[in-house]
């Protein structure tokens, strides 16, 4: 099982390194998003208090949605997702392999996004880097966990491009709430660890529950 996951991740990385399409387009889209938000929300050179956290997470969700769609569109070419379902590895391995790839891509994008948002929205996001990384990582994992399952589910469905956000956003409401509030708590001048810890724990619980659920439902949902 682990070997299968590793092979899939390595394959996705190889494909990505060759074309760099997903990394560049996701990054560019994320930056454009931030700019659009900046033009909408920054008034007279200053952003409203705490808006930075919101912008960060909105961008992660939009860019993530795009990246998910694109990743599985790739597997739709030549029906390679079906080929992956045919191999003797346990089928949840395919899910975990794709999940790892998506999380890595999003973390890479966030590496650029966080400093950018901190800069443009005058948000002290980098004040407590350990907590920031923890919250962002757990939130990204939760979003990607649900997103990978839904995107895989929709590969053979009609209207899959529009259905992914329709399904994904309501289900990931706790992620965006916890992510934004956790990030805001980090950026606040009077930093309270207990608050951040609360939102972080919520994200961890969400991740555990939904990754487990996804592992259970992946095979029944993917086989017709």
């Amino acid at each position, binding site marked *: 099982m682990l070997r299968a996951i590793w092979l899939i991740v390595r394959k996705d990385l190889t494909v990505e390194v060759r074309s760099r399409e997903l990394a560049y387009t996701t990054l560019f889209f994320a930056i454009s998003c931030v700019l659009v938000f900046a033009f909408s929300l920054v008034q007279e050179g200053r952003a409203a208090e705490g808006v930075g956290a919101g912008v960060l997470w909105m961008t992660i969700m939009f860019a993530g949605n795009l990246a998910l769609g694109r990743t599985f569109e790739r597997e739709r070419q030549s029906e390679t997702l079906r080929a992956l379902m045919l191999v003797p590895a346990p089928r949840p391995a395919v899910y975990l392999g794709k999940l790892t790839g998506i999380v890595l891509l999003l973390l890479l994008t966030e590496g650029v996004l966080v400093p950018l948002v901190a800069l443009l929205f005058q948000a002290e996001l980098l004040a407590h880097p350990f907590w920031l990384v923890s919250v962002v990582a757990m939130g990204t994992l939760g979003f990607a966990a649900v997103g990978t399952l839904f995107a895989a589910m929709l590969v053979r469905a009609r209207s899959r491009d529009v259905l992914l956000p*329709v*399904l994904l956003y309501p*289900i990931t409401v706790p992620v965006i709430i916890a992510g934004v509030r956790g990030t805001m708590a980090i950026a606040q001048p009077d930093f309270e660890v207990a608050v951040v810890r609360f939102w972080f724990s919520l994200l961890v619980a969400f991740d555990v529950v939904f990754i487990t659920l996804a592992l259970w439902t992946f095979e*029944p949902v993917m086989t017709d």
Partner: protein
Amino acid sequence: MPKWFSPAVLVCGVMFAISPLVIAQAPYESTMGLVQKVFYYHMPSAWVFLTASVVCGIASARFLATGNPRHDRTALAAAEMAVLFGLVTLVTGPLWARKAWGTWWVWDARITSSLVGWMIAWAYLILRQYGGPGSEKLAAGLALFGMANVPFIYVSVNYWRTIHPATTVVPKLPFSMGFPLLFCLAAFYFLMFLLMKLRVRVAEQQARLDAIYLSLDEQA
């Protein structure tokens, strides 16, 4: 349809017809006046919305586990009930809130969680309608995720407004579990039961029609 269905519909209709009279009997709430009466429709429909969502989630889980199309039909009917009664709840709520709190919408935990839950039910229907063949299983997966999400949605929305929810915005609701409320509760649940029965029956007929089509095709 079973024999008791038509009389049952009649009884339900009568219950709804006389419900305004029953509600009018209830004590006149001092501060709010007439609008408070909306509450007698609002709360039962909220309860029905919740019940329907739970039924949808459980039926979806059973469908994923067993593949029996009966569970799928139940899940679909329940989702439609959830969207319908959820809509009633979300419309009657603001009507009441306007009078009670002076504003149409309040971002409190219960209300916001209901909104998100309602959107998930709606997304279920969209998926089934536009997802193409095979979307029954996908929708079941969504319903399962939605049901698992309920505690998370509630907790996150609850603490989203303020980290100290002691200062909750919704005051202790001024009602007593009096006869009018129980009456309306009964009427709404009865309605939900009848509608579900009807909807499941329609779905069953469709399935039977499909089966006939298929067997005809065979004989040709």
